[in-house]
């Protein structure tokens, strides 16, 4: 059961091989056994989960089940869920029980899925290692001494360790794809606006996008079918006809034009990762794809532009955490200003404070044009790079991350080294494009390597098709970490 695909689980439930309660209990037991070691979950509430499982079983008994009815799904602790503690990995929300559901939670509830628990993450999704969580670092199931990637590291680790069959994450600069790569699972960041941000705690509003993490592209498609959809409460949500993201899975890859950006294979790329990605490209060619060399000439500007735009938006988005209405409030303060100062100094971790400071600085009078406005112009250039590239290819392929998972603590004292983890993933966020990461082999230390696929706007079905066809020919995504069985 723990290693089954979502399709298999749905069939098992439909044919009464097991109930949702049994399935949920099995995953809860797995979490119970492993969470002490991996710290993938912040909150587990088996009573709530099992109540949902019972309701799902009733639906299935009535024949009213949908594809995900009764299937447990772990949600990143960035999505508010009614009556659930929702912390966003921060001390400042350590006592925040949400009175409402995020749009994404509503959709999973409507689909009859079971909320399995809230997964650990970098505080306010700011990080690439899941080390900045107030609730302690998440460990990589492939090597507990290593990070699982971040910020959706809890979700990625939970999938890798088979603590959940499916999970959600958010991706602002690579926060779904990079942990998927480092933890050996599949992850998808949809086109900006495809999944509503309502109830998803904001980091950088113009970049944040929710997406699924799972064991395979086929599972990702089923999850996206539930997640995607217009929501009038999010002004950036896109209104378009619902589509079945599984519809193109079986399509052969013959004639597919695979764009390979030379900028993503240069300095900084670890040889083991490069080798695995090259092998994957050869595999795609064997499947009938045609390799097209492309250029993304403004790639090198993406990290600097991102580290202006994302902190700028974050500095404003996080202003609401002031201790006045909810969340943590400092105990001793002299006056209002002191209450704000102490609450935010005590409630936010070092990385969050760093980004608030950067963001406040770049938006300041006299610096706005030099930083924020310039970064927005770069953003346009990067989007144009892709527009040009997609005239020549259908999908852009490269490494998800320059290295395999690194040791816990190895980069915490050097933020720039940490930020460079997202060098290949950030451009898709800046451009708003859909992108996925799928396992494509193992590198140094037997740690997983991820293959990065970027598609044109709303080409999720096509991306999942490429990933699925690749996964039919390879078994990297089916491998399980040893030592945690």
């Amino acid at each position, binding site marked *: 059961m723990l290693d089954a695909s979502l399709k298999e689980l749905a069939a098992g439930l439909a044919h009464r091989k097991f109930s949702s309660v049994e399935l949920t209990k099995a995953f809860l037991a797995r979490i119970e056994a492993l969470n002490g070691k991996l710290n993938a979950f912040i909150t587990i509430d088996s009573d709530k989960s099992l109540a949902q499982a019972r309701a799902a079983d009733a639906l299935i008994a009535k024949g009213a089940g949908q594809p995900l009815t009764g299937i447990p799904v772990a949600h990143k602790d960035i999505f508010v869920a009614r009556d659930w503690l929702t912390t966003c990995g921060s001390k400042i929300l350590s006592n925040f029980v949400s009175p409402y559901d995020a749009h994404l939670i509503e959709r999973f509830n409507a689909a009859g899925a079971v909320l399995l628990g809230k997964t650990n993450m970098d505080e306010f999704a700011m990080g690439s290692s899941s080390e900045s969580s107030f609730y302690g670092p998440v460990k990589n199931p492939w090597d507990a001494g290593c990070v699982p990637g971040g910020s959706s590291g809890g979700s990625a680790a939970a999938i890798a360790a088979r603590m959940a069959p499916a999970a959600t994450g958010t991706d602002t600069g690579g926060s779904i794809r990079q942990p998927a790569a480092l933890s050996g699972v599949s992850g998808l960041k949809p086109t900006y606006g495809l999944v509503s*941000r309502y109830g998803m*705690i904001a980091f*950088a509003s113009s970049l944040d996008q929710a997406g699924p993490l799972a064991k395979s592209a086929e599972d990702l498609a089923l999850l996206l079918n539930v997640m995607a959809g217009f929501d*009038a409460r999010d*002004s*950036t949500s896109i209104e378009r006809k619902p589509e079945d993201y599984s519809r193109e899975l079986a399509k052969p890859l013959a004639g597919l034009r695979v764009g390979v950006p030379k900028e993503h294979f240069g300095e900084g790329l670890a040889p083991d990762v490069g080798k695995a990605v090259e092998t994957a490209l050869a595999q795609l060619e064997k499947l009938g794809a045609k390799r097209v060399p492309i250029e993304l000439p403004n790639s090198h500007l993406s990290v600097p532009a991102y580290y202006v735009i994302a902190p700028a938006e974050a500095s404003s988005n996080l*202003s609401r955490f002031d201790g006045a*209405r909810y969340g943590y409030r400092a105990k001793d303060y002299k006056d209002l200003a002191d209450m704000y100062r102490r609450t935010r100094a005590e409630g936010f971790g070092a990385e969050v404070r760093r980004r608030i400071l950067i963001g406040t600085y770049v938006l300041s009078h006299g610096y706005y044009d030099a930083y924020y406005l310039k970064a927005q112009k770069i953003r346009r250039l990067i989007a144009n790079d892709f527009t040009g590239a997609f005239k020549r290819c259908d999908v852009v392929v490269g490494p998800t991350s320059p290295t395999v998972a690194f040791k816990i603590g190895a980069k915490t004292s050097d933020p720039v080294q940490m930020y460079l983890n997202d060098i290949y993933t950030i451009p898709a966020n800046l451009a708003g494009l859909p992108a996925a990461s799928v396992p494509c082999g193992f590198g140094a230390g037997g740690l997983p390597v991820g293959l990065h696929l970027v598609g044109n706007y709303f080409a999720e079905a096509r991306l999942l098709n490429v990933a699925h066809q690749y996964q039919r020919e390879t078994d990297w995504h089916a491998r399980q970490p040893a030592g945690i069985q």
Partner: protein
Amino acid sequence: MSWEIVIGLETHAQLSTASKMFSGSSTAFGAAPNTQASAVDIALPGVLPVANRGAVERAIRFGLAVGGTINRRSVFARKNYFYPDLPKGYQISQYELPIVQGGTISILTKAGEKSVSLTRAHLEEDAGKSLHEDFQGMSGIDLNRAGTPLLEIVSEPEMRSAEEAVAYAKTLHSLVRWIGICDGNMQEGSFRCDANVSVRRAGDTKLGTRAEIKNLNSFRFLEKAIEFEVKRQIEILENGGKIVQETRLYDAERDETRSMRTKEDAQDYRYFPDPDLLPLEVSEDWLERARKAMPELPQTKRDRYQRELGLSAYDANLLTESLDKASYFENTLEFLDATSAKTVANWVNGEISALLNERGVEFPQLLVPPKAFAELVARIRDGTISANTAKGVLHGMADGEGTADQIIEKRGLKQLSDSGAIEKIVDDVLAANARQVEDYRAGKDKAFNSLVGQVMKATKGKANPGQVNDILRRKLAR
């Protein structure tokens, strides 16, 4: 040495939408604290703003009314600062690209008509309210008002006296009500002004350093605050001092302005486009529909009343104080001919307005609909009753006693216009008042009035005063 006063106004008009600028909560005034604050208004984690179409529409109407440019694409921006009644830690406003740019407001003062240019009008949300009085050592926060839609209307510094500033504010106040975008209730804060005041030596082209007086919520306070501030600034300058750029508060009880904060502690609001909201696009179609839905504007009516009906600028201005009043005037005139315009205008501006005031009601609640009122005017015009008698009839109508004719009949008010009957009474009065007749003939005009009074008394006021005059003069001339 003479001084020139320079005033610009920033006016916050609360838009009359049922729900808030970016959330579905009610905007109704006076609810128990925090009962009209939704997840969005409280700024819970994860909530997002959605712009209120009705508020945008009202801003468009304003732009059309003042002849400004409606920007087809405007941008919501965040103004960042910390305060407990500002739940998000930023106010959503418009900064570089407001929805309305330019436009003019035409004002009438004793000196005549003047046009005041507008800089811009932009949409924004209001903050909540901090309550410091009722809580020992603490402050209460009421977020009912947080997120209420406002249109901030900014004028150029083109007013030269408190009188002009008040005329501008009144005209603007009447306009926003006229086009139905704001209820104009100043006690409830639906319409409030900030005044930027500076002075300079007559003839100078450079503006003096200004002080901004915040939150003036009555025309009287606006006038008094400006007058005080002008005096204060002139005194400082004449004593060789310098004006400090600052924000000041008007204290109505002491009738003075006081410093709130100077430019030095001005905050850096770190404005940037709100990434939660797409640029606000106004389509040609939307604009066209808004244009078609616009009522005839007060200025157009004023011009028309003068041109077509021969009314004075003063009368036309008074009639167009509100759309209700102008409509009442026009609807009444529908039942009469255009030569009655002056009479109707006098009555609407005079007796009818006084009646509304006295009873504390508005035109829609007046029990005298235009058609009924037109009948009353007709009775004055055809000489059935005198203007003086008509006032009593109007009150009777407002009390629901019946139509003008019914009341005239019931009270027996019909004017005596039978010249034979009047002549007879005049003869009697002349016979009985030989002394006054002599006085009159000796050149004492006063005696004539006394004789008229005698005739009116004898007819219990029902004689047609015009006729009485004519007959008396004719008979005395003999």
